[in-house]
């Protein structure tokens, strides 16, 4: 949560003294909550990823893991409840009301803050989606508590505090942030940053209903319509099995074609690092990294990408990272599995050609037999 003036990294020893005794009125805050993001009938998969993390935190703290489902009455909310249990929740809180049909800040903030005030969780996790970020900022401000955005690692300290680690300084360093004297301790995590946990069919457990204390008349903002994204407009990057990406080492916008050619040859999605989006070479939905998409493919090929932390945290979940970079000291070689020090512009066509030969129909038939 670094902002304006938090510029000087301070030694841990100097900051440890800040911890005071938790104020009495926060002492009965217990259990770990995960917001189950239900929009237009579907649960966002980041919610399951968070249940996996939440389970670990709850087990360490020896407390319960709860899912929080907000939505309109219907089949979808029932499914969301069942899935929350299947992914590890011990208990589910729901607020069911027709006016929660579309996401709007006012009723969702009201529902969440009322739930928190009544049932008092010590930790509240949300997905860092457009919905989750819009909601989390309002909820934290209403509750006057700390919120750490876009965490890449969550843990419990020896004293039971949530240790939330996130990139800082534009993604060049990591920092660990605590909310020591306020509750709940809130954090958001971006989709795909945490691994998807195992799903296990389980009977639906305890479900606690809570009434929504706001009426349509009190809500100013009205939804006039919704236009879903066309399939082609949404890059399916986050969930692709194979990804090829280019960075500044490509030198010029037209060399992005070399990345696209390799991607096409191996049936991959293509992406890029942040500078290419800032230069306007590639649209923002293709950006890979802390402020773009986080990916977890089986194979990731990075061409001409130096590998700043902001990029690294977005690709570390890949099974196999291959780096092509002309600079032997590029940080990407510190976390890639396979590296090659060479000019990506020259090498990409050769690699595309190699794959095309190997994967040609002729060889494919041999593979199949």
């Amino acid at each position, binding site marked *: 949560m670094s902002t304006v003036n938090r510029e000087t990294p301070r030694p*841990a020893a100097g900051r440890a003294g800040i911890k005071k005794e938790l104020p009495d009125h926060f002492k009965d805050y217990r259990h770990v909550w995960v917001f189950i993001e239900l929009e237009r009938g579907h649960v966002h998969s980041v919610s399951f990823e968070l249940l996996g993390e939440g389970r670990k935190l709850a087990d360490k703290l020896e407390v319960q893991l709860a899912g929080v489902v907000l939505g309109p009455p219907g089949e979808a909310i029932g499914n969301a409840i069942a899935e929350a249990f299947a992914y590890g929740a011990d208990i589910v809180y729901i607020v069911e009301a027709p006016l929660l049909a579309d996401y709007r800040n006012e009723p969702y903030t009201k529902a969440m803050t009322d739930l928190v005030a009544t049932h008092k969780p010590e930790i509240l996790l949300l997905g860092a989606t457009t919905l989750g970020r819009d909601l989390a900022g309002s909820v934290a401000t209403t509750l006057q508590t700390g919120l750490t955005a876009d965490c890449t690692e969550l843990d419990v300290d020896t004293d039971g505090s949530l240790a939330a680690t996130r990139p800082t300084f534009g993604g060049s360093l990591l920092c660990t942030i605590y909310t*020591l004297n306020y509750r709940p301790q809130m954090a958001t995590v971006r989709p795909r940053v945490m691994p998807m946990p195992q799903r296990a069919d389980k009977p639906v457990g305890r479900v606690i209903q809570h009434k929504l204390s706001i009426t349509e008349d009190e809500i100013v903002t009205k939804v006039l319509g919704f236009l879903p994204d066309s399939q082609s407009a949404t890059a399916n990057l986050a969930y692709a099995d194979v990804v090829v990406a280019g960075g500044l080492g490509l030198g010029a916008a037209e060399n992005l074609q070399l990345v696209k050619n390799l991607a096409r040859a191996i049936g991959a999605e293509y992406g890029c690092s942040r500078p290419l989006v800032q230069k306007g070479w590639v649209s923002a939905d293709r950006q890979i990294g802390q402020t773009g998409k986080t990916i977890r493919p089986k194979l990731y090929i990075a061409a001409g990408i130096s590998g700043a932390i902001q990029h690294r945290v977005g690709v570390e979940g890949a099974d*196999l990272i291959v780096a092509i970079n002309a600079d032997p000291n590029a940080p990407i070689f510190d976390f890639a599995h396979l*590296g090659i020090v060479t000019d990506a512009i020259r090498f990409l066509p050769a690699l595309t050609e190699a794959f095309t030969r190997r994967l040609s129909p002729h060889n494919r038939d041999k593979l199949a037999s």
Partner: protein
Amino acid sequence: MHIVICIKQVPDSAQIRVHPVTNTIMRQGVPTIINPYDLFALEEALRLRDAYGGEVTVLTMGPPMAEDALRKALGYGADRAVLLTDRYFAGSDTLATSFALSQAIAKVGETYGAPDIVFAGKQTIDGDTAQVGPGIAKRLDLLQLTYVAKIASIDLAAREIKVERRSEGGTQMLKSRLPCLITMLEGTNEIRRGSIEDALGAARSGVLKWSAADAGIEDLTRCGLRGSPTVVKRVFAPAARAEKAVQIDTAEKTLRDTADELMAAIFTRQPALEHELAFNSGA
């Protein structure tokens, strides 16, 4: 129409380096810029003023050097600039930042007329939290419209605004009311070139410098480090993996042989991939 836009001066992140030995940020000589996401909000604010008349006040909180960012904003055509600067703000997290900014916006409103719209960028490129905008909206009781892709219409007489808002998997069309807080999505417009008059005006006109007291902030315990519920305990560079990347040697080999060797190394480590690639590629 009175529009307030909050901006932030940030280091140009493309140029930040970490010292290889001490693992600290090498800050010297890193140029500062207006947070790039804020420029979309600034342009939208200027367009609304040009269409509906009124004034654009640009506001930032930061050290004295943040005045540079405000002068740039004046150069683009903003009418007034306020720099909220005080040592009490040092160490602010997003909650303390949104507190100080909302107090300053209230003061701007008292002095120059209540704002109809408060703008902010989607997020900053250094903090990346996207929390300060919603925090200001909540504190000032403004309708919160984040990730706005387009302002479709404004009816000043009826105090009504219609926007297109990016949401998960699509675009919401929303009708809401003024006053509201809008965070603008990137790529929705392009910042103008300031006119010569604006450039001259920016050089001449003063940037208002407000302390906490000037902004009407009485409770200093809600500012800076003391007003921040979050505590940064540790800042560190991530550890390198135990083993570095296995390098494919390029010396004395043709490009073709090197490429074949890399491909073979990929398939050795992930044997199942060859099948998948062959059938995905649809050759």
